[in-house]
């Protein structure tokens, strides 16, 4: 059993935290600017063929076979196991490509190669998905900001959304640095990160709002510290269970879900950090005061009614 009795002075470390965040952000943005994201097939367009062999094959054999078949520019890699081979081709290929590739590989009669997956995405579709994805992220951020401004207060909504943008940029930076394929499922994961990280931030903010009303200390720093300490064990327990299932997903979920699990894992770690250090920090920068939350809406009575 974990009993957290000590009061941590989270806000005392806020300068160090700010430096860490700024460094992480700069590294992420730098990597995004220099390396860019390794966009997956969904966003670049092109062809992808996944085949499985009855026994492990040498990548070099597959490459030379493809070269002989006229596909010298194919990128060949294993996918999960040595029997599974993933072949990717550039943008400008026709939809029939997958079938042709399979025919080339099947010329070696005793190879026992079967098609697992064949995907073709036109370059225009890729571009649209890219735009739609970016737009989706933006719309999600704006909607959340509006909801929070309505439920809390403007400063809180700015704080939550900045903390969120912080998380999203760093997860993107992580993908850019590690050069992990960024495809539609990873984008979905990124949107889930938004949900998760918000969840975390809001739990903390909720406590801060409450404490501003009931605690008779005037220093915002103290109120933030108290709130963070009060929610700390919840933050740890929830992050742990979520990370637990994500690690399981990354290990047992298979290759197709690996990027998704990794993105969420990165998102949960950074989201937990940001709800403790970044979200509160921004509130202090915005000079949050008790007056911001006054007059308080008549919440208490209403709550009693709503609780089932």
């Amino acid at each position, binding site marked *: *059993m*974990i009993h957290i009795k000590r009061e941590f002075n989270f806000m005392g470390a806020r300068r160090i935290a700010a430096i860490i965040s700024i460094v992480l952000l700069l590294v992420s943005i730098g990597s995004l600017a220099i390396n860019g994201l390794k966009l997956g097939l969904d966003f670049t*367009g092109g062809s992808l063929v996944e085949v499985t062999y009855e026994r492990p094959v040498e990548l070099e054999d597959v490459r030379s076979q493809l070269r002989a078949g006229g596909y010298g520019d194919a990128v060949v890699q294993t996918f999960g196991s040595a029997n599974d081979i993933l072949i990717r081709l550039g*943008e*400008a290929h026709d*939809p029939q490509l*997958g*079938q042709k590739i399979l025919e080339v590989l099947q010329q070696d009669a005793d190879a026992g190669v079967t*098609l*697992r*997956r*064949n*995907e*073709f995405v*036109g*370059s*225009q*579709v890729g571009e649209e998905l890219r735009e739609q*994805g970016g*737009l*989706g992220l933006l719309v*999600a951020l704006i*909607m*959340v900001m509006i909801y*929070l401004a309505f*439920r809390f207060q403007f400063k809180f909504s700015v704080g939550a959304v900045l903390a969120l943008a912080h998380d999203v940029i760093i997860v993107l930076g992580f993908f850019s640095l590690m050069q992990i394929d960024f495809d*539609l*499922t990873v984008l*979905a994961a990124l*949107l*889930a990160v*938004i*949900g*998760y990280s*918000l*969840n975390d931030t*809001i*739990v903390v903010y*909720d*406590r801060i709002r409450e404490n501003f009303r009931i605690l008779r200390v005037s220093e915002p720093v103290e109120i933030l510290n108290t709130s963070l300490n009060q929610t700390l064990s*919840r933050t740890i*327990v*929830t992050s742990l*269970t*979520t990370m*637990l*299932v*994500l690690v*399981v*997903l990354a290990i*047992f*979920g*298979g290759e*197709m*879900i690996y990027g998704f699990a990794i993105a969420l894992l990165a998102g949960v770690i950074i989201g937990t950090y940001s709800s403790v250090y970044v979200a509160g920090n921004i509130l202090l920068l915005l000079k949050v005061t008790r007056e911001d939350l006054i007059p308080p809406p008549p919440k208490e009575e209403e*709550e*009693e009614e*709503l*609780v*089932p």
Partner: protein
Amino acid sequence: MLNRYPLWKNLLIVMVLVIAGIYAAPNLYPEDYAVQISGSRAIHQVDDRVMAQSVSLLEQEGISFKSAELENEAGMIRFDSSDAQLRARAALTRGLGENYVVAMNLAPTTPDWLTALGARPMTLGLDLRGGVHFLMEVDTDQAVAQRLEVYASDIRTTLREQRIRYRSVDLDDSGRLIVRFADAEARDQAQSRLRRDYQEFAFESAQQDDAWFLHVTLNEQSVREIEDYAIQQNLTTLRNRVNELGVAEPLVQRQGRNRIVVQLPGIQDAAAAKRVIGQTANLEFRLEAMSDASRAATEVFQFRNDPDRRATLERDIIITGSSVANANATFDENGMPQVSITLDARGGQMMSRVTRNAIQRRMAVVFVEHKTRTVTERIDGEMVERRIPYTEKRLISLATIQSVLGNQFRITGLDSPRESSELALLLRAGALAAPIYFVEERTIGPSLGAANIEMGVTSVKIGFALVLVFMALFYRVFGLLANVALTLNLVMIMAVMSMLGATLTLPGIAGIVLTVGMAVDANVLIFERIKEELRSGAPVQSAIHSGFSRAFSTILDANVTTLIAAVILFAMGTGPVKGFAVTLSVGIVTSMFAALVITRALVNLTYGGRKLQKLGL
């Protein structure tokens, strides 16, 4: 009394859970490998005779099956293994002939009493069951151009009938019809006449040297109408074609402004499916040109099955294949193959108007195929894909008109019964109103689908088990209560997904796993609050009470914001991403219910109304 639910509330919860249990139950029954037999056309019904024939075919081949029965006018034969299913499909396709379509399927084994209640298992997405996914783009510009061609010949006819002399009517690259006249008077006359006949046109006059022009353009609304019509028509045609393929539970749906998505579960031969679906052919009916016709009004075509043979046809199109309402391969009095055609009202009018003056002349059926070459060019240092469309037109029949044709007539002079039945099929299934291009294609093999399911289910099991153990260790009695609620939460997610008829995809399973992790959150918030209350010296019962009520607004805010993200994900996403959004949204709602209502009820039942000094927390 504090922390007691009234009886009705407990009963309500039990009722919700019973309903959830019933609707989640079908997912526990594994699906059978099956083949589905259906008639390729209305006249070929699957009946007991066909079923008996199928059964004897299977017995001959020595393929064992679990059951063979008629369900909703389709034969369903179930097998133990996918191997038996594959062999059976091959044997039945061979044995039953072309009149019946044999499709591979996964048949639910839901017991009858559950089916009677409307309960059914979740549909599996293509990534879990294997199949083909196509995304096609409809070339609406071509549809407009085709319509303009028809307008061009209408205009020629009108001008001829009104004895207004014109030099030519042509379609230019920017979608304008250019009518050329020898003098200004004829042009003005034509303009006022056409203005009266065609509301959908905008006119513009021009003059160059000694030629006078009338530029005719379609207005915005008509263009939009033509585009919409083309897409609707293409949807219908694609549905017909997919039906000819014989796929169980296909999906043909419009996506966005000019795209159509087609999903064919269980199909492995993507190339064959594509040949049938992507056939971008249309038909044109034209008269053979008179020997004295001017060069400008005629066009020479090759025959499709004999490129050396040619015929000269009039440029004017009488009708296109889209006017055909029905077509059947039949035989005439002399036993020669023919195709009986029924036209729609407008097509019938056009046909009788033209053929009235053309008896004993010959009418041709032209097969028009839109094809594309894809070339890659370097523009501004970037590789850009460009499609160059071109059209191939070939004659498939040339037959003498015996009498005035109305909306019913026959095409004779066909070489063989095979030719007549192919032509009838093409006319019946309908031609595409506009060419289509494949812009996305995904084929998922059945082995990958099975592997994905297995990995997904394994992750759910392990992740779930770990969370249960963690909660029990950390919160003891309360942890166990939360675990019961979590399990019921999983049942509710399955039930809601099944009731919605939602499709379960691989990211969807990931969404369930994630929900399991996050569903704990609401419980944790409540339990931590109760602990706090206890630490600040509140009596046990009131600590429980205020723990729940104080955590409520936090839980609500946190979940509503996550729900906003999930809903946007659903609205903007496609395919697998949508599947993830659905499970995430459903999971958020059910986990709130589980934590706030079910856990509360369990806590109440365990601790409510008793005098306690300590809590197992």
